């Protein structure tokens, strides 16, 4: 009943009249049912089922039922879970190249970003998982991360200097904050609210929806819309499943993944709009930045340090 059974016979003719067994696949998603990435994953599931005439059915396990992102990736490597949607950050521990997506101010703008991610460079990046028993299918949107704090409106890097900013646990994240003259404090996400409230830290960074759903907006009023990092989400298949698919079915899965991106991005845009409205209504001050140049310049030390490691990809992105 569970797991992907043998798919060897499913090649070729659809209308031979032979009743085929439906293969049920498991897709793990750590966000709730109504979250944009879950909506995207469900759209992907719907498209696969439709395009394969029901030969494949994908069940979406939302809400982190099957483990956190990191565990799920490892389960994919084992082949016990077939598909998942995870952020690119934890994936950088599985493919060195994918870490390039975490570089600050990487893209010119949204349009350039999605042209690249949905295009050839994106496809090549998705192929860097070879050797990790993972197959990348497409990128999903989780917006841009920006800084927010309890102290003051921040418009330039000078304004943020000296503040204690919570970051995720990674050397790159720490280096970015430090390059701005602020002080990076790695901390578990669940601790951030009370740490902001009591002044253990002065600020944190995240996208709009998380700023809203985590209630951090209640204690940190100043949100600087300077989208410094836009690490996308990635839809992944296990290599085990991938090798069981026929070439045509592989093509169908890729198509479905790419087609589901627009539905996911639309859901994301709606969520950002809602969240933005809600935090403003609750008294948050949005500091809009017209010119990102001082910010781009401030993070140059990060490029000096990591530039070589990601040289190939940075060249391709910049020459695009």
């Amino acid at each position: 009943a569970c797991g992907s059974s043998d798919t060897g016979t499913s090649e070729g003719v659809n209308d031979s009249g032979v009743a085929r067994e439906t293969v049920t696949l498991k897709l793990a998603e750590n966000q709730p049912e109504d979250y944009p990435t879950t909506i995207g994953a469900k759209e992907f599931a719907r498209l696969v089922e439709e395009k394969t005439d029901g030969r494949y059915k994908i069940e979406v396990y939302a809400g982190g039922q099957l483990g956190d992102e990191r565990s799920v990736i490892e389960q994919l490597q084992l082949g016990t879970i077939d598909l998942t949607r995870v952020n690119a950050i934890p994936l950088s521990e599985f493919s060195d190249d994918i870490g390039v997506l975490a570089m600050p101010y990487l893209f010119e703008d949204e349009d350039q970003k999605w042209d690249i991610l949905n295009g050839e460079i994106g496809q090549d990046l998705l192929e860097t998982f070879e050797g990790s028993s993972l197959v990348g299918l497409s990128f999903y949107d989780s917006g841009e991360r920006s800084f927010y704090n309890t102290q003051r409106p921040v418009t330039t890097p000078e304004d943020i200097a000296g503040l204690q900013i919570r970051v995720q646990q990674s050397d790159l994240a720490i280096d970015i904050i430090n390059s701005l003259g602020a002080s990076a404090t790695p901390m578990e996400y669940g601790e951030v609210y009370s740490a902001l409230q009591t002044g253990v830290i002065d600020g944190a960074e995240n996208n709009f929806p998380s700023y809203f759903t985590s209630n951090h907006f209640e204690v940190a009023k100043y949100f600087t819309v300077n989208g410094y990092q836009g690490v996308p989400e990635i839809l992944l298949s296990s290599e085990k499943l991938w090798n069981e698919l026929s070439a045509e079915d592989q093509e169908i899965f890729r198509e479905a993944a790419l087609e589901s991106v627009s539905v996911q991005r639309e859901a994301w845009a709606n969520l950002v709009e809602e969240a933005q409205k809600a935090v403003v209504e609750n008294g948050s001050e949005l500091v809009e930045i017209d010119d990102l140049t001082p910010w781009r310049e401030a993070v140059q030390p990060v490029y000096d340090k990591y530039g070589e490691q990601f040289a190939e990809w940075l060249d391709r992105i910049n020459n695009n």
Partner: protein
Amino acid sequence: MGIFLLIGSFIILLIARVPIALSLILSSFITGMYLDINLGALVQRMVGGLNSFSLLAIPFFVLAGEIMNEGGISRRLINLSNVIIGKIRGGLALVNVLASTFFGGISGSAVADTSSVGSVLIPMMKKSGYKKDYSVSVTISSAAQGVLIPPSHNMIIYSTAAGGVSVAALFMGGLVPGILLGLVLMVIAYVIAVKNNHPKGEPIKKEEIPKIVREGLLGLFTAVIIIGGIVSGFFTATESAAIGTLYAFIITFFVYRDIPLSRFGVILHRTFKTLSMVLFLIAASSAFGWLLALLKVPTIVADTMLSLSPNDVITLLMIIVILLALGMIMDMAPLILIATPILLPVATSIGMDPVHFGVVLILCLAVGLITPPVGTVLFVGSAIGRISIEKVTKSMMPFYAAMVIVLLLIAFFPSLVLFLPGILIE
């Protein structure tokens, strides 16, 4: 079929007296093989279940408890309680409850409470003319009450199982119900004392009082550090536990100085022993719970319960009855991990706050610690009192009644739980 295999093989192994944690993981392996899942996945889930920074608070709570215990904290808390309420009729029974409330503020373990407070007070109570079974009953019901008093590693396990509910809010949420239950237990003990003409406590020499109070409060300050650190947000739960442990270490070896520093090896060893039991249960339940999720048990249970129940009150009662029943036959830590993902969605769908549900869950399972057929605290208490489980259970009736009444109160009056977190954390 997978579901039946998982639960069926687990029950069979349990009945065959295979260790609980081993039964959980073996039934998972058997089901994994049936479902054609690489067993490596289940092994990975064992690690995954432990690989969380919040859970690191557990070794510290255990260590702090062991340090204070070995260093004579139980005796000091008992003395302090004696100064406060010993003079009343039934004094030793009341002291027993109060000392456990204090003890609960340092350690999260009801078993540790029973064995340390119990091994001092049960013999004392017997000598003063209390009946054996009653002495054990008071000891174990108040030890179970201590589980609600922060800090509590069970709350941390719940916080992890519920996907990161605030530990600070849970700790504050448990405080009022814990104290309320303590008061109710004291009232019962007093009524029984008057009825059975139990003795008043021995008088304390006036000149000893300042020392007793000072040393008692110094020990209790461990609780203030741990809870204060978390609630103020100054420390994370794990960090608070670490600092509290450091403080307990200093108090024990440099202030009380009942034991030499060389005893620390023994303390560490004992901590490790306690940890090995708890952590195996956590690891094994994590694999077991993962299979339940894979088999969609949470969805099935939630749908069934909600379709059977005519209204929210009945749903909540159903949740409580299920938890009490499961608590009777299983240990606390694995039940928290297994029941939370199944029942929390049901609870939130009837509008229950996750903090409120957590406190109700912990109290239900705390009752399970002192009910037959499987009740660790009941077993330990009976062993210390050298009395049969049946006899203790009979004399437990008034205390069971009290606990169920308090349970219903906090279940149906959420503000008892949510009031304190509301003012302190929002």
